């Protein structure tokens, strides 16, 4: 009957779509033939590009170690959990990695709001979680002994910018335009304190949600207020759209962000429009005096011809290498998962390796303290955007440029 066959078409369609819904491949490898590491990240949604960059850095590390024979004669297997940058999805993903997939440790982790929640779960489940990118200080400040972070937290990222604001820019008026997440609000707190310290007037605090595409309301309001400096914590897509819409509305300010937005996708999306934007970055190409970093940049260019190693690829690479290094030093897995996880946690505490960000050592809270981000500004060369270190003077490769009105800019 026609109706029957149509309803079976529907059932087939639905089943097909359910199959497609799985973004990350499920691995059902037989027990003990691989060493399993879980990786969290927002692999779908507006942050997907950034998570992909992190993944590329990790896959570079993975292939390097696996091609040299893996660890203890076993290949390393990465199992990905898509958090969609939503805490509820992140908790579900990490629970699955820890309990169902039985990973030895969890790495990755991009969104602060997600990782504040996931690290709590990991600590309760007594599984080491080594956060790669998320910068909220809360992640490592709750006394969780199973939680580590291979990248600086927001105070460390913002420290350099704060010195620059105090010594060079000295704005009279500031405004805040933040992502409405822990990532954005943590930075807002730090910069608000800094503004009070230097006596700058805080004109307004505005917010947006991840996935928002229309910022004209907030930008129009900012334009009316004319702040010298606008602190803007955003990720790639939103940051690029904000720059574009600021231009459409003829709004000029000194944009200061963190640096997570300065990815290849960001520069492709906004091009010359993002000139003068500033941040605090761990972009590997800025640091090639460090031999490990130079080696990473070279290996990345060989593995991904034409691609540029951004901040997240470097952080992803270092994150996985630190986990692998700890697993090696923990000793051959005994088969008792909890025992093995505890040994990995103990090995992580004594980490001392040199990777693309510099030297990686953890303090007693599990936070890396030996990595220093650089203060950068987007400047144009032949109308193409580049990141340049502008502070402190002894490390700077370029001078600070004050933003010009739109009609005076030569590059469109």
């Amino acid at each position, binding site marked *: 009957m026609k109706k029957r066959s149509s309803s079976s078409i529907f059932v087939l369609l*639905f089943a097909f779509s359910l199959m*497609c819904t799985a973004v990350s491949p499920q691995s059902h490898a037989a027990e003990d033939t691989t060493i399993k590491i879980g990786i969290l990240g927002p692999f*779908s949604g507006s942050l997907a590009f950034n998570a992909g960059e992190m993944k590329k850095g990790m896959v570079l590390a993975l292939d390097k170690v696996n091609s040299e024979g893996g660890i203890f004669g076993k290949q390393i297997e990465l199992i990905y959990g898509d958090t969609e940058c939503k805490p509820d999805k992140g908790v579900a993903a990490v629970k699955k990695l820890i309990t169902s997939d039985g990973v030895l440790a969890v790495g990755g982790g991009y969104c602060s709001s997600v990782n504040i929640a996931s690290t709590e779960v990991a600590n309760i489940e007594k599984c080491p979680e080594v956060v790669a990118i998320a910068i909220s200080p809360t992640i490592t400040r709750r006394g969780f002994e199973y939680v580590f972070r291979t990248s600086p937290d927001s105070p460390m990222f913002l420290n350099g910018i704060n010195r620059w604001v105090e010594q060079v820019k000295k704005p009279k008026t500031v405004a805040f335009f933040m992502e409405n997440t822990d990532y954005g609000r943590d930075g807002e707190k730090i910069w608000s304190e800094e503004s009070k310290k230097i006596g700058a007037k805080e004109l307004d605090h505005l*917010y947006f949600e991840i996935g928002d595409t229309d910022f004209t309301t907030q930008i129009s309001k900012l334009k009316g207020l004319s702040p010298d400096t606008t602190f803007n914590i955003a990720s790639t897509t939103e940051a690029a759209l904000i720059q574009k819409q600021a231009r*459409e509305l003829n709004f000029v300010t000194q944009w200061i962000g963190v640096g997570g937005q300065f990815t290849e996708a960001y520069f492709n999306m906004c091009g010359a429009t993002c000139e003068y934007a500033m941040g605090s970055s761990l972009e590997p190409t800025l640091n090639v005096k460090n031999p490990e970093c130079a080696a990473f940049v070279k290996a990345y260019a060989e593995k991904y011809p034409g691609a540029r190693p951004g901040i997240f690829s470097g952080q992803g690479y270092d994150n996985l290498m630190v986990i692998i290094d700890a697993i090696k030093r923990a000793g051959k897995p005994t088969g008792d998962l909890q025992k093995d996880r505890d040994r990995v946690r103990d090995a992580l505490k004594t980490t001392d390796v040199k990777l693309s960000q510099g030297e990686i050592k953890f303090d007693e809270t599990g936070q890396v303290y030996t990595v220093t981000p650089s203060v950068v500004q987007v400047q144009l060369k032949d109308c193409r955007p580049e990141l340049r270190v502008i502070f402190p003077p002894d490390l700077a490769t370029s001078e600070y440029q004050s933003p010009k009105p739109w009609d005076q800019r030569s590059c469109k």
Partner: protein
Amino acid sequence: MESLLLQQILNGTVVGSVYSLVAIGLTMIFGVMKISNFAQGDYSMAGAYVAVLVFAFLPGWLGWIGSLLAAAALIGLLGVFTEKFVFRPLLDRSTDIDIIMVSIGLFILLENLALLFFHATPRMIPDPFGGATIRLGFASTSVMRLVCLIFSFAAIALLELFLNRTKTGVAIRATSENRHAALLMGIDVNRIYGITFGMGTAMAGIGGVFYGTLFAVYPMMGVMPTLKAFIVTILGGMGNLRGAIFGGLILGVAETLGGTYISMEYKNAVGFVIIILVLLIRPSGLFGRRESL
């Protein structure tokens, strides 16, 4: 002398006109076929990707006009196809839940197909005006936004003309008013369903090109347009075309003004507050009882 109020009203009108386009499609489909199409925003997403593909071959002005035509045509055809094979077999069932479930399934399918073929990286549709801005005395905006506004109104005007002045258009309105009477009048109702669904998705496709130009293109982008379209149709009255047009503009302006003068953090909540108020005070929507199109 620029005015923040007028600037925000302009901003809201531009965004609202795009909401209207997608909502018009939704309300037409509901009005004629009683289908709540949860995949409506994903037809917009498909339209945006059509534009991305057209721009790969045809840059500048030509590319943009070509994208609009291609999106209308291709997404319209996609609509006709999905109506015939996915929705029509279910139309005789008594519960609406089946139809809603199918449209949700369609939405998941379309999103994941886009993820499969285009990957998650967001893309921009190039601005054929190169980011040029225009000052309208009281406010500024980009030429692109102004063009989107004008084209949205043009598309809506064309649709109104079609529905009022052509035989098929009148047949669509008749079917939405009373399906059985339409059948008795000799109208081929199945053909009308196909055309209506196709036009509804074509409007969504055009809306998608605007969304993609003003904002960004990525597989999950359909969620917001669907949500806004539902808010607009509830505001304007389900099945009411005028309601969808004005409802979209009202929502756009309410969001920007609410964000500016009440609280920026709750800008997105404005739409939901509107729905609650409408359903409490005037459930049939601002524009009265469900009328035919």
